[in-house]
């Protein structure tokens, strides 16, 4: 059993639905993004395209972030999800330096989105749980997945560009899509074995 994701770049329209539904699910503090959409253009006018690259923690098979963690706060669940135990994190940020995909964020102090107003009722309920002084990142919406739901970014994607499932099961939708569409990972040369695959546009 290994949770994984396939992101279909043909379907993705760069709407930021994943980035913002993630924020809504987790109430991440300002400047912290478990999921993001990167935009880049390719080519020269007029032969040019805007390209969208939605990113999140890639839940590597051999996660460099886990290797460098001095407290085992960063760890890998048996189902392949790379997670952070905030109570163990000392905030050394070595994992940020180790992550080849820049998917870790340092939450340096308690902070809210409306300056000078303190937390909104929503932030009191959802954001204040996050400890300060520790590193944060995506955990494939572990609570949702354990409750039988899909991760927020997958469930919400309006273009239906994200698929979530068991990479170890060759019959799962993700496995089949990756095989049929020639899914690839980012920076495979690093040998980290990401669990997030991209389906070419």
């Amino acid at each position, binding site marked *: 059993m290994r949770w994984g994701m396939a992101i279909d770049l043909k379907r993705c329209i760069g*709407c930021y639905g994943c980035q913002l539904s993630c924020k809504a699910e987790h109430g991440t503090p300002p400047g912290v993004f478990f999921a993001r959409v990167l935009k880049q253009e390719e080519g020269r*006018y007029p032969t040019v*395209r*805007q390209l*969208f690259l939605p990113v999140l923690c890639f839940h590597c098979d051999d996660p460099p972030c886990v290797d460098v963690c001095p407290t085992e706060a960063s760890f890998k669940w048996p189902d392949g999800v790379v997670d952070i135990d905030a109570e163990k994190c000392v905030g050394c940020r070595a994992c940020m330096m180790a992550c080849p995909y820049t998917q870790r964020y340092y939450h340096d102090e308690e902070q809210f989105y409306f300056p000078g107003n303190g937390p909104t009722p929503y932030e009191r309920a959802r954001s204040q749980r996050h400890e300060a002084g520790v590193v944060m990142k995506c955990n494939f919406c572990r609570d949702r997945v354990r409750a039988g739901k899909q991760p927020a970014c997958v469930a919400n994607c*309006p273009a239906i560009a994200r698929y979530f499932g068991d990479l170890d099961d060759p019959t799962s939708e993700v496995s089949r899509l990756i095989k049929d569409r020639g899914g690839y990972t980012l920076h495979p040369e690093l040998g980290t074995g990401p669990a997030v695959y991209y389906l070419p546009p």
Partner: protein
Amino acid sequence: MEVVSEVTPTCGARDDVWIPSTCGLCYGTCSILAHRVDEVLIKLEGNPDSAVGKGRLCGKGVSGLMTHYDPNRVRVPLRRTNPVKGIGIDPGWKEISWDEALDEVAERLRKLRAEDPRKLFIQRTTTVTSSRTPMQVFAGAFGTPNRSSAGGGLHCGNGAHLISGIMHASWSVVPDFQYCNYAVYFGASKGHGAGHASCSNMGMAADARARGMKMVVVDPMCNFAAAKATEWVPLRVGTDAALALAMCNVMVNELGIFDAPYLRAKTNAAYLIGPDKLYMRDVASGKPLVWDSSVNEARAYDAAKPDDMALEGDFTVNGVSCRPAFQLLKTHLARFTPEWAEPITTIPAKDIRRLGTEFGHEARVGSTIVIEGVTVPYRPVAAIAFRGSQGHMNSVYNFLAVDLLNQLVGSADMAGGCLGFNPASHGHPETGRPRYIPKPGPDGLMVTGSWMAHHVPYPIREPRLPEELGMQDLFVLCQTSPFSDSADREEMWKKFELPYRPEILLNYGTNLLMSIANRETVAKSLTQFKFIVSFDLFLTESSEFADIVLPDCDYLESVDSRPNFPFIFSLPGGMGEWCWPIKQPTVKPEGEQRRSSEVLIELADRIGMREDLNAAYNAILKLEGPFRLQSDRKYSYEEVCDAELKTNFGAERGLEWFKNNGLIKWPKKPEEVYWRHFVDVRVPIYWEFLPQLGEKIAALAEPRGLKIPRHYYEPLPDWIPCPAHDDPGSDRDLFAFYYRDIIHTNSFTMENPWLDEAARLDPFSYTIAMNAETGRRKGIEDGDEVWIESRAGRRVKGIVHLTEAVHPEGLGIAACAGHWGDGMPIAKGKGVFFNDLLELDFDHVSPVNLNLDLCVKVKVTRAKGARR
């Protein structure tokens, strides 16, 4: 019927519920589930049971709680203490009680109504669709014809919506994503950005891409739709009609591709046109004539079999030589060669020829398809236009030229073609409601079955000396008018002897200062109101001109029985399901906010127009039988909603049922989706009424000193340049234009800190997109701060983002940012205030539908010392 979700608490006394409702971050109004725990909303998700959004939301929708819980929301009624009004002038707000506020507003309105109800001007934002019904009702009951939808209406309503109405009986058009193979987008982003049915369309467009639909996007900027296109065709801003006409010409005159049976049966192509550009008419019945080739004589259009109608040729009827409209069109098109269009559009002629050829061939004229056992014509091509292409003085022709592509190959509302959003509905299987079908009107031309307001686009009104301050009764093809705010409005009113002047503005949520055009002009018009009362969520730049601000409940605190009705607006088109969700309160307001719908009822009561209000509700909601409101009773808005739901879906399905179930849905039938094949109506490929209309308007206008340029009133579309194209200034060498960003709605969402943050991370949202080579030529680097200056000397500042993805002459700006007020502190100072460049007067609007020209020729200079 579907049971959507259990809303009773899931565990013991603890409050933990998922409440089905409707999003309010834009007019797309997707269905949501709001998760409330211990009286606090902690999550918004799409409602997977609904056809509207299908359980998925855009970035704006999922961010709604940051708007809802914004501490900057207005919480109590406010009264200004400073009588002086102006931009940046502190109104000196004083908190007052609701009673004080309502007393004063009601007293003023009561007096005004007794004096002359037309002096009330009512205006609402397009963002909050739930305000449509209460405001329409209030206006009708009060007796004022003066209503406006602010910037949204003036920027797209008059062109895209009006012509979609005339040609497709709907508010907008969209490719039939399930069957279309080749779609050409002209300044539109359907399925790739904001707007009507946006989330549903995103999913359907992605399915279409995965299926292999080719998409050609004609746009000065490569973003959103263009980013996902098979081919991006950059063109000079505002020249869409030239390209579309040249493509039509290639199809009709070079390749001989057109759908003759469709043109004969579903359009006025066979109507005979005399030398006066008007229909030849049957003397007895007055009906337009066609040439019946089976008997070789002219007959009324409804007396001849379509197959026998001549589309081409010269005929003589009663001694008058005449030709079918199609013959005129064909001849008319001949001059729009690709070579003619190339220097106008900057698109190489060979590409134009190729695009026309591809469109013609992909149309598969003559083919049919069986859908759910029903055989319908199969035309898997669609030409789609929206705000971008029609936002010019040539608004009507730009949109019409694009739609001609659909009409010529018969793909309008056929399988795989260009669909209106749900123009026909046979109603719920149990009640037969809501039922509407386009029907033939005067001259056999189509009258919509459903419309967003009660001025249907066709038949058009007879122009008259205006009684409406927007002069929509003179310029009858206009829906939202510039003259409520324009620089020349007083001059126009004088010229046209408007018998009164507006005195009170009832504003609902619009930030007019930012959403129409340059703020100086708008501010001047706002200061001329004697009294302004404004329902607001935030103190916007425009609320600063109000005398009384009433704090409104937001979408999560309000009720609406019809968030997706009329279906022509935000319910996804194509096959699938009919779906009628409601909006319901999910939490109580934290301050003293009240629902505007209830406040309007209370005001009506205090004004003494309860009966009128109830009558208007009966009329607008089409309440029937036992559910009609009684004249003399005061109803709450929830009761009104209950009545509408019961009228439509039966006594057992009232508001309570909907609160529990969220929505009702039932399958669409091919006969509804592809209604055009089954309904005997025609649309005009030849706008015979236009020259007549031009003459009638001119007859009123020209004696009063307003010249009506008749070349905009020809029956067949043409390319007419924008003022920007004719700007002689040599240092003004770029066309600034705006586009709607995927993460922002009008000027509203920049205050949402999640969306603001996302926009700041985006390369384009808050910057000015300039072609990289153009930048190099001008010595402007990425990140430079620049001034953009128009011919009129209006200047806006912004940060340049150099990109390959924009036409070298274009300057792309996401509207409509650039807040400066303190009432929305997150939004303040973010992005570029494009609209401040726009002139607002008769010279900058379409002389036909008064749609504002949204492109500006500008000079760009580096701001001093600015380099980041």
